[in-house]
């Protein structure tokens, strides 16, 4: 499916990162990065394994704390706000994990209900059912409602993982390797779903991947993370219009024989 032109508000930065640094022991993963995510935009972060792509979105969602620098999400500094404010902020951020992270002991219905019941006090049974059916319909998996996660395929698990984040109507979506480990057809379906979410839920998204097809199909902008810094940021074509030996192999591996 062809990606529709997104309505991006370049005056509204939903995520603003300045001079962000993060180390694990002696290993400096992020070395002073700057990044803006605009309202309505799909931003793809590309990079080799272990370059800190997942660390970046965990810092944005407050799962990790930065060593240095600013991480401003929806106008809040994620590193300095109180625990209560952070919990409130997280509800506005959807996070789709690499391995889907579905709760093994719960059915699909319970997986989807869980964040809703815990965060919306006084919600009625009818409202819960309506929301669950709505997000399941959005990801095209209404028939799986009573299944356990162990009964789902990899692609279905990814979709349910995305549905679970959509149920809280997030303003920002984080996708961690959304197409990792999936067959090419399912990858295309997931890429289409990411675009549908952008259109239908009016979300701004950061998509972490090293799958260039995913980057090309979903990204309004692409940022290439190399050696702990964003070396190239721009449209897909702009980023790969280079002879940089650290960038070119990515393109060649995916698109040339």
């Amino acid at each position, binding site marked *: 499916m062809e990606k529709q032109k997104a309505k991006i508000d370049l005056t509204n930065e939903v995520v603003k990162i300045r001079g962000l640094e993060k180390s694990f022991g002696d290993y400096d993963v992020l070395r002073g990065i700057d990044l803006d995510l605009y309202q309505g935009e799909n931003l793809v972060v590309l990079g080799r394994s272990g370059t800190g792509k997942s660390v970046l979105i*965990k810092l944005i*969602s*407050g*799962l990790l704390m930065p060593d240095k620098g600013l991480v401003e999400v929806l106008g809040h500094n994620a590193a300095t706000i109180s625990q209560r404010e952070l*919990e*409130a902020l*997280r*509800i506005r*951020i959807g*996070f789709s*994990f*690499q*391995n889907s*992270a*579905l*709760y*093994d002991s719960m059915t699909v219905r319970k997986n989807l209900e*869980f*964040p809703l019941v*815990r*965060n919306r006090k006084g919600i009625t049974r009818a409202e819960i059912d309506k929301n669950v059916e709505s997000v399941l319909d959005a990801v095209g998996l209404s028939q799986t409602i009573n299944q356990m996660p162990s009964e789902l395929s990899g692609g279905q698990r990814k979709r349910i993982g995305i549905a*679970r*984040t959509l149920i*809280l109507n997030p303003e920002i979506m984080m996708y961690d390797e959304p197409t990792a480990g999936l067959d090419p057809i399912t990858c295309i379906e997931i890429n289409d779903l990411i675009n549908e979410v952008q259109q239908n839920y009016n979300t701004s998204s950061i998509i972490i991947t090293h799958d260039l097809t995913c980057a090309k199909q979903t990204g309004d902008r692409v940022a290439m993370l190399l050696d702990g810094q964003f070396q190239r940021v721009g449209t897909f074509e702009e980023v790969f219009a280079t002879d940089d030996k650290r960038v070119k192999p990515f393109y060649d591996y995916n698109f040339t024989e």
Partner: protein
Amino acid sequence: MNTTESTTKPVPSRLSRVRGSVSDFFLMLYRVYAFIIRFFKEVLLPPYDLKEIVRQCYETGVRSFTLITLTGFIVGVIFTKQSRPSLTSFGATSWLPSLVSIAIMKALAPLVTALIAAGKVGSSIGAELGSMRVTEQIDAMEVSGTKPFKFLVCTRVIATTITIPLLATYVAFIALLGGYLNVSANEGTTYVTFMEQAFEPLTFVDFWASLSKAIVFGFTIGIVGCYQGFNADKGTEGVGKAANGAVVTAMFLVFIEEVLIVQIAGWFR
């Protein structure tokens, strides 16, 4: 291609390794302390997750029932059988019910229950939460604002603190039943006589101490299992370590607490 770098890491001396181990130990103690404090802070705040507490009580209590019953009965029979020759040599066989009840009520019932629960329930909690940590399910709860500590840790610790005293009480009666069957088969003592003799030497402090022990053991098993699982390292190895750590640490602490509570109960007699 970059040239290879030669890096020589200094080998740490024995003193610095010992220093490192000691500081790691105290760091771990601090983390456990912080974990317990967090439990008491969060357990009082809503939501109370009553359904999940009941589910966990079922998981920890009812699922251990068969094993606990079998073990309790065998402990009662074996203890009675092994104690008989010593009492017979003093001509004090009639004291057998009292001896059995004192041993079971004061020490064996809570201890045996706690050791079985540490193995079965503690390891299960450690492995389950460890697996949830490794597969990012706990992170998923965290990012959706659903307070995983409250939902996963508080409910399990409350469940073990409730069910293990109940199981210990049940084990005490099952073990006494085992003792009675053995005494009845050998000495022909009636049930009523056995029970009268069994409960005659026991005081309120004995019951209280036994129950307190079981409550403390239950809390310990729950908190240790949750701590190990919640803080599991990445990878499948981390899950195994969490399960193993939950059992070993809980058993070790149960023995230490046994000694301390016996000592404290002694001051009230």
